[in-house]
């Protein structure tokens, strides 16, 4: 019997965002919609934080929601929070809040607040679900809001549709195969392979990553950012693939992820436009997260989970800075120097702090996570593990290169003040506090992720033991049947 939270926090947060979305649909005034969206996102964040605190107080690996409306409707425990998802939920809610908070009025007409809240509801539901089919359904549904934006912007969505269509087909096929009651090892392997390919595709593994660059180019930065930064592909791998895939398969995924990490880091260095640069930078980091997750060792997995949180916060902050700069100057070319430091010193500071945090610079949130990740990888593959270090080094060069291109190199003559607005300042300070605070006091975070990693590995081992014992019993039954048929 699962322990229960004191209130159905996740359900409340999902309902708040869904009802909020309907409310905003009927709010034609953009300023009012912005204010309302901000309040809804803040409330959602508070509810998810309460849920996290409630979960911590239970001191349990997982907990379900009490008096749940959805559970009564579907006669199943839909929302289950565990060590893995508990901090991811406030993180996701924070990303949405900061994105809305830093949306300038000039971007209000192209960024849909209502759709944003729907996607937040889908994301929160995904991250608090463990049921295979619900995850598949929600991951598929999450692809729709960006598609609607492609359509409303009258941009070609073929690349996106092709990749996401394939993603959904693979997910459903994998889900179907894995749901067969008496499946043998081959079917299980095929199901795992299909689910893995789907999750890797969603994560943007090479050569199936082009949808991501296309997405960043053709829809609003905010929507693209919120679609990729929560790393639901990694979540799908942990929930759907990790418990069933054998070690060699996980290590295969890790190698593919490592290649993507290095490739994307190299590509980030040669990009000539800021959005594409960010896309590759993110791709490299999210692949590094996968490398850690697929190590299937406590150290590697802990490193992967820590980097997941740090990359989620730091790269989201990094992207929000780019977005704020873009809102002032338009699309940012990296072919020339822009010299914006003089006008936007705080944005420049945030750009540097979050960028450095993402590469695991000492004293920032990512430092210990990256150390753990590298140590975990080197433990399994001593030589290949150095590729992680190379990817990190390339990323750090790319980040400083773009910092210099955007904020220095020339004198920018502006006709109006480009300084950060108060909401942007608030967002900046929250992010810096998280990045530096988490960097200086990393122990609680690391312990929490280590606990989650140990539990995930334990569950995986139990699943393997169960499968092994059922296979053994099947073999013994077959042997008995054969013996009976041989003996007259």
């Amino acid at each position, binding site marked *: 019997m699962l322990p229960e939270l004191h209130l159905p926090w996740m359900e409340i947060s999902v309902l708040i965002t869904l009802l909020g979305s309907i409310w905003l649909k009927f709010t034609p005034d953009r300023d009012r919609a912005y204010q309302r969206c901000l309040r809804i996102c803040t409330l959602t964040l508070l509810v998810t934080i309460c849920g996290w605190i409630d979960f911590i107080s239970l001191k349990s690996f997982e907990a379900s929601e009490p008096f749940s409306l959805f559970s009564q409707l579907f006669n199943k425990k839909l929302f289950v929070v565990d060590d893995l998802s508990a901090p991811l939920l406030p993180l996701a809610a924070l990303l949405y809040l900061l994105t809305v908070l830093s949306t300038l009025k*000039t971007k209000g007409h192209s960024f849909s607040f209502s759709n944003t809240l729907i996607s937040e509801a889908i994301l929160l539901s995904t991250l608090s679900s463990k049921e295979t089919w619900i995850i598949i359904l929600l991951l598929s549904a999450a692809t729709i809001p960006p598609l609607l934006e492609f359509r409303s912007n009258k941009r070609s969505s073929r690349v996106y549709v092709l990749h996401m269509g394939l993603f959904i087909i693979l997910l459903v096929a994998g889900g179907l195969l894995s749901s067969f009651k008496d499946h043998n090892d081959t079917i299980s392997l095929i199901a795992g392979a299909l689910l893995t390919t789907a999750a890797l595709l969603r994560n943007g593994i090479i050569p199936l990553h082009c949808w991501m660059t296309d997405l960043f180019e053709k829809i609003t930065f905010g929507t693209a950012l919120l679609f990729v930064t929560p790393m639901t592909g990694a979540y799908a791998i942990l929930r759907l693939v990790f418990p069933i895939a054998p070690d060699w398969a996980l290590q295969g995924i890790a190698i593919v992820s490592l290649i993507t990490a290095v490739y994307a880091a190299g590509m980030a260095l040669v990009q000539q436009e800021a959005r594409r640069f960010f896309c590759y930078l993110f791709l490299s980091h999210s692949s590094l997260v996968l490398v850690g997750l697929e190590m299937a060792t406590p150290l590697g997995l802990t490193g992967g989970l820590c980097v997941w949180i740090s990359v989620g916060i730091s790269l989201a902050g990094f992207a929000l800075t780019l977005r704020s700069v873009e809102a002032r100057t*338009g699309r940012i070319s990296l072919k020339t120097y822009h010299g914006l430091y003089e006008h936007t010193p705080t944005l420049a500071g945030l750009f540097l702090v979050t960028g450095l945090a993402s590469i695991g610079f000492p004293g920032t949130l990512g430092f210990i996570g990256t150390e753990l990740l590298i140590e975990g990888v080197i433990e399994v593959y001593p030589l290949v593990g150095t590729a992680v270090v190379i990817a990190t080094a390339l990323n750090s060069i790319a980040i400083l290169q773009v910092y210099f291109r955007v904020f220095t190199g020339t004198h920018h003559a502006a006709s109006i003040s480009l300084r950060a607005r108060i909401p942007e300042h608030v967002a900046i300070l929250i992010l810096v506090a998280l990045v530096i605070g988490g960097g200086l006091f990393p122990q609680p975070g690391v312990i929490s992720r280590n606990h989650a990693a140990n539990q995930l590995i334990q569950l995986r081992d139990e699943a393997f033991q169960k499968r092994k014992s059922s296979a053994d019993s099947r073999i013994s039954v077959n042997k008995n049947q054969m013996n009976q048929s041989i003996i007259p």
Partner: protein
Amino acid sequence: MNSEIVFHFLGVCIVAGPALLLALLGTTSLINKPLGERLIAKATQTVVMMGLFAAIAVLVLMLASGKRYVPVEMGNWVVLPAQHFHFHLKFIFDRLSIPFCILSFILCGTIGAFASRYLHRESGFNRFFICYSLFLLGMIVSSLAGTIETLFFGWELVGLASALLVAFFHERINPVRNGLRIWSIYRIADAAFLVAAIMLHHLTGAGDFAELMGTGSWPDGQATISEQHALFIGLLLLFAAAGKSALVPFSGWLPRAMEGPTPSSAVFYGSLSVHLGAYLLLRVSPILELSPLLSLAVILLGLVSAIFGTLVARVQTDIKSALAFASLTQVGIIVVEIGCGLRYIALIHIIGHACLRTFQLLRAPSLFHDYHSLENAIGAHLTQKPSLWVRIMPERYRVSLYRFELERGYLDMLCNRLIVTPFVGLFRYCDSLESRWTNLISGEERRESEPITPASDSLEEI
């Protein structure tokens, strides 16, 4: 009072001072309320004096008590007992760290006082001191690090501060390009350091220098790893040290670093930062001793760097570059000394050279005024006798050598041709392939963002 408590208190004072300065300057800048010039100068002076006196007090206490090794435990920053992972924060005071720490405080204090006047009313005054405090913290942490992870921590802070200070004059492209170049080299060297640190951690089960280098205090420690491991890890550390100390083939960044303000050039690239690689080699010298091949590699690299530095320094047309290469010569000699096992001589050489070079670089701008005054007074240019080389070497060789020296050994060009251009070319090719692929699928001729123009909804347009 227990002597351990006194040492602990003083140790905390030494490290906490620069950290507090960084926190103060960083926080006030982030909330957009930077401190005034006078307050910044005062805060810097206070922190440096506090750290310097605390370091001297530690030295006096050590001399009085006859202790040669004083560890100051800060506890575990992060610990995962089940996985035997711990990030241990420990600072050590020994015959290597104390002189380096005092040297850092003295030189940084001098430069802090100099810079508060030199950069008076400069728009980046606050930014300079943020980088300065970052650098000071990095130097102190590196000097006193008791574990290889802590040394890496400080090492990275120094690298970032250096790159940002080279690019200090933001409104010009050259300083920024040079800053990026330096950052790139540092990061590649840091990658080698990180791999070496983790390998060492694996081999010995701890990153603690006391464990890595045996029981004896510096310089008497004896490393416990095998010769092959020592060679592999030592080469990685030598690579890292070469990057940080601008040894051949990384020497190209040293004259580029002079693009920053004179105070930073003096203290960072002329004296402290440039010796950090040599300091690393001194710290891990018990590993060098395990492998004769490794020691030979260290000597050869030092020798080549010293000869290269002295040749190139002679033909530089600006004083900062000439001094930069002169520094390289001395650092090369220091590395040779380390390779030969002359650790005390190397340490004394570092201290002497750092002080001399700092004052030389600070004196450089005013030297020209004096030079011109002198020439005006005598009414003619000062004469120079041709050197011995000029007299004995055939002109053909002299011209070739001059060209080689003027082009700084073609090292930058080689680096660009052999590494940067193929690397960038490969990824640009991949980028164009991706572009063609997405165009094919989406049925469009080009990327949306290629012809970049300001968006119609940008603030400036409105």
